[in-house]
């Protein structure tokens, strides 16, 4: 992907699958007349196993990346991933489309992560709180010009910085990137107020941008 991609609008269908955002994929699905996530989940609740397979194909990669980047271990991520989908399977009869499916499934992922953190004594996730004042003090970093041209280096640096983020901020950022959740949806999924969710996202973004602005 060249730098022009960030400047010129590129049609969604022209992008590689992994580069499409969730909104673009959703738009394409609507154009094709495909069923929504909520419809598929309801169909699966009525016994349509094919609907679950479609649902799984849509969300398996974002959910797996979300978990892997949160725990940093492939084996643990696989365990959590499998457990997450089994919870989805077992909840098929109780599912009600009161919210987006992604909000619901990422909320399950968050809860599963919380259990994992509790089991491993990672209390930082629970105690870490950000404040708007701290956020306001952060400088608005610009991405270095050389990293804009060298995307591979930029990606490596971004992922490294992502791993260094606090769990809550990383989760908020990943929920925004992988789950395409809004601030309100992130707040609902993580069980915090919208302001807290917003501050986490902005704090994560500021740190990541700062990591990309530094010269190595």
């Amino acid at each position, binding site marked *: 992907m060249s730098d022009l991609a960030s400047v010129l609008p590129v049609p969604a269908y022209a992008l590689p699958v992994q580069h499409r955002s969730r909104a673009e994929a959703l738009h394409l699905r609507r154009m094709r007349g495909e069923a929504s996530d909520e419809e598929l989940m309801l169909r699966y609740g009525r016994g349509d196993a094919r609907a679950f397979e479609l649902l799984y194909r849509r969300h398996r990669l974002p959910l797996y990346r979300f978990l892997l980047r949160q725990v940093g271990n492939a084996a643990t991520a696989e365990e959590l991933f499998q457990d997450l989908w089994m919870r989805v399977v077992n909840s098929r009869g109780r599912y009600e489309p009161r919210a987006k499916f992604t909000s619901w499934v990422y909320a399950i992922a968050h809860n599963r992560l919380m259990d994992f953190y509790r089991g491993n004594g990672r209390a930082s996730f629970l105690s870490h709180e950000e404040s708007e004042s701290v956020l306001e003090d952060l400088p608005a970093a610009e991405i270095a010009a050389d990293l804009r041209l060298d995307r591979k280096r*930029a990606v490596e640096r971004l992922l490294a910085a992502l791993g260094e983020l606090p769990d809550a901020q990383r989760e908020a950022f990943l929920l925004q990137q992988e789950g395409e959740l809004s601030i309100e949806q992130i707040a609902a999924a993580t069980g915090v107020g919208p302001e807290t969710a917003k501050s986490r996202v902005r704090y994560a*973004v500021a740190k990541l941008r700062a990591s*990309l602005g530094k010269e190595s």
Partner: protein
Amino acid sequence: MIERRDEELSHIYREAEGPRPPQRVDDNILAASQRVAGTVRRPAVFVFSRRWGKPVALAATVLVTSTLALMVFERQSGVDTVAPPVPRAGRPAKVAPQEPKRTESSPAEPPRAVSLQKSPSVDLPRAAPAPAAPSPQAAPRSDRVQQHTVETALSGERRGTGQPARLPAIPRGVEILRRSEEVKPVPDAQRAFDAQQQIPPAQAPPATAPAAEAGGIREPGLAPQRAGAVGGVASRVVVPEAKERTPEKWLEDIRRLKTEGKATEVERELAEFKKRHPDYILPEDLR
């Protein structure tokens, strides 16, 4: 909610080569989902069959059983009606229920003879010389239909005249049978059955008793007639159609006798005919 600069960050993040879950994890999850979907959530038809399957099966079993029992019972009754089985020694045979109906009807009714010909209740088995009497079904159908016993003839006689039981004039059929020497002895079992059917004359209802009173039993008072009139072997002499012929058929028979030159028999038949059908206008050739 994503700002412009965040969009740039998002582009960089998406360019990261995304890890994928192993294939075995995919297989496990999909297999579990299909297994659960196939076992827990069933189509409505399956749920219905599972819920109502046993009651419906039980009801169907009861229905089929009762239907079969009814069929067997009706068939058994039908067999009894068609031809009462030849009683075995020491065991009375079942009584044909339609036979008393025949006796209550007016003897002048022409259609009754037809119905009697069709009625299986008149199919008394022809006595066989063998100790074990053959089944009624074994005898030819046409033969059985056209046969009546002397008992029937006697019954008709009594109904027509209203007279008490007496020895009737031996009809022509009896003579024919005598000539052909088809008189067969009655098995002992049949005689035992006849003896059981005898009712004392004091209890015998009038000859015009309705069928309801008869209650599916052989006409009361008939057995004494039979015993007194023919007796023993002769009581089971088979008479073809006897008095149950239609007047026209009877007259044809008389004409045939007349053409054969049997004047005595013609006179006797005519006298009998007039007795049975007093209102019938005889044709010119027979007056």
